[in-house]
């Protein structure tokens, strides 16, 4: 797989507002890459810079190896599906889809053939003569996708294309989009704030936070090995604990928390007396009625939440922090108000460097000096 889009040291500022910070991103040919983040994290700006609607303040953007940041949108071999669809209201569905080919001066016969073929692919046959105002949200969405795909772009940029659809339609369109992408083998760069959508559709996810890519990896890696505290809490449900590494033995670290010591698997990048964050998914959490070796956590059962497929147990630690624990199949439920001992297998938890650790380190250095 070759590289198709490359962003090197890209920055975008609006006045004093630094929206995208020193972004480096490589997109492989034929992959489905999602830019995921909450609103205002810079993901849409990044997409708009690739499309050519925004110019980076500094940095280089390459598409198929050639720098494009000086090129106008109409000179770039990428197409966009807009969040608001942006269909031309005065043109029929046929003319909307044919627009790109018409601009390229493709012969009329070929345009007709390709538009009809494309309409069939997105299941819109028979809608040629209608106007966008006569279509439902899902249908407009399909027109927008067809209008972009008919140009056979090397890269398709999608800016929250499913945001305006209801849940059921959204799920259906997710699968359809994924199917189209595989079939046409076009690189998709997809922007969304919906983490479930990202996990379902993507080959790789770039999690953006405050204009920075926190982690770029496969959905599984991101879920199981979050690189930052933000990623851990943003993707799925998790329990986090802040503490200090007090000892490391054979790749297992003992972390001292406010509520007692626990054990976590760790790698060489951690050192003793470092501040770190532990993330444990609710389904990886365990509890027992007796203290588990190496774990000093004690908690009180507060509540049970039934969410259909699983039962979640909310327990409270002495400092007031709440944890979520998924009940294992067949496990006996302690009464509300009773005392339990939460624990986990050391390899099921993830240890994450804590940024505030750096601040402590700097403070220490200042003190020493």
């Amino acid at each position, binding site marked *: 797989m070759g590289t198709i889009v490359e962003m090197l040291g890209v920055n975008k500022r609006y006045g004093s507002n630094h929206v995208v910070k020193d972004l480096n991103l490589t997109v492989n040919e034929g992959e489905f890459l999602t830019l995921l983040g909450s609103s205002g994290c810079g993901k849409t700006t990044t997409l708009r810079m690739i*499309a*050519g*609607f925004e110019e980076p303040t500094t940095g280089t953007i390459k598409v198929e190896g050639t720098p494009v940041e000086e090129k*106008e*949108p*109409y000179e770039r071999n*990428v*197409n*966009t599906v*807009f969040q*608001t669809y*942006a*269909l*031309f*209201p*005065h043109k029929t569905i046929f003319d909307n889809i044919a*627009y*790109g080919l018409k*601009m*390229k001066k493709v012969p009329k016969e070929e345009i007709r053939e390709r538009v009809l073929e494309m309409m069939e692919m997105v299941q819109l046959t028979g809608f040629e003569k209608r106007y966008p105002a006569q279509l439902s949200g899902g249908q407009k969405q399909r027109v927008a996708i067809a*209008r*972009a795909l008919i*140009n056979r772009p090397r890269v398709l940029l999608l800016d929250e294309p499913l945001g305006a659809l209801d849940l059921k339609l959204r799920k259906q369109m997710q699968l359809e989009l994924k199917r189209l992408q595989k079939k046409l083998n076009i690189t998709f760069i997809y922007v969304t704030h919906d983490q479930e959508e990202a996990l379902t559709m993507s080959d790789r996810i770039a999690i953006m936070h405050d204009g920075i890519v926190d982690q770029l990896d496969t959905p599984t890696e991101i879920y199981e090995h979050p690189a930052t505290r933000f990623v851990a809490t943003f993707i799925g449900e998790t329990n986090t604990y802040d503490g200090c590494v007090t000892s490391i033995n054979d790749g297992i670290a003992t972390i001292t928390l406010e509520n007692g010591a626990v054990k976590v698997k760790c790698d060489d990048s951690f050192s003793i007396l470092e501040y770190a964050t532990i993330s444990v998914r609710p389904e990886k959490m365990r509890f027992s009625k007796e203290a588990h070796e190496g774990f000093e956590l004690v908690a009180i059962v507060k509540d049970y939440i039934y969410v259909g497929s699983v039962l979640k147990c909310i327990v409270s630690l002495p400092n007031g922090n709440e944890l979520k624990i998924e009940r294992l199949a067949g496990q006996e439920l302690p009464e509300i108000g009773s005392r339990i001992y939460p624990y986990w297998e050391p390899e099921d938890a993830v240890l994450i460097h804590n940024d505030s650790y750096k601040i402590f380190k700097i403070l220490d250095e200042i003190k020493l000096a």
Partner: protein
Amino acid sequence: MENFSKLLSVDYLKIYARSMLISLMTTVLCVLIGYPFAYVIARTKSKSRQLLYMLVIIPFWTNSLIRIYGWRSFLGNSGWLVKALQYLHIIQEPVDFLYKTGTTVLGMVYCFVPFMVLPLYTAIEKLDGSLLEASSDLGARPFHTLFEVILPLTSSGIFSGCIMVFIPCLGYFFVSNILGGGNTDMIGNLIERQFKSANNWPLGAALSIILILLTLLLVKLYQKLGGDMENLGV
């Protein structure tokens, strides 16, 4: 009825034709000048937009008669324009710019550009920016985007602007009086003269009715073609 039949004489028909021609020229020029101006105002962000908008409105606050007299002294054979051109040695002898069809059109355009700009501004402001981005994204150069997207989607604004310029233009008389010097009589002048100097009120009334009917016809046509009355300020 006599008066109505008089209206069909060749002399009068000439004046109708001239009125139409001058109004048409004024309207076309107003579109050509007003459109880019309205586009710039509508697409400018924040503060400077208010300022540009004010620049269109402020001349309204001065009586148009006074403004037209201003043009007369500017264009007259001892006016500033002639002096400036002589100073620059572009012309040697004074040239009279006044009392020509072109001068009347100039005055008309000057008076009516704001009437064109305001409906255009409303239409262009409503234009969704993402449509322009989409057009560019799909490979359309700015020229194509203009003809494929911008103009069709603002056509209602162009249309109501044209109506708002063309109709009052037909009846305006003082511009052709002052700048045309009686050489470019229009329907308006004719009516004015019947009432004021010729004292032929019945003929003036008949002419007025013709003008009103013409106006109604145009407005009806505008509605027929899907024009929105609100854009005319009705």
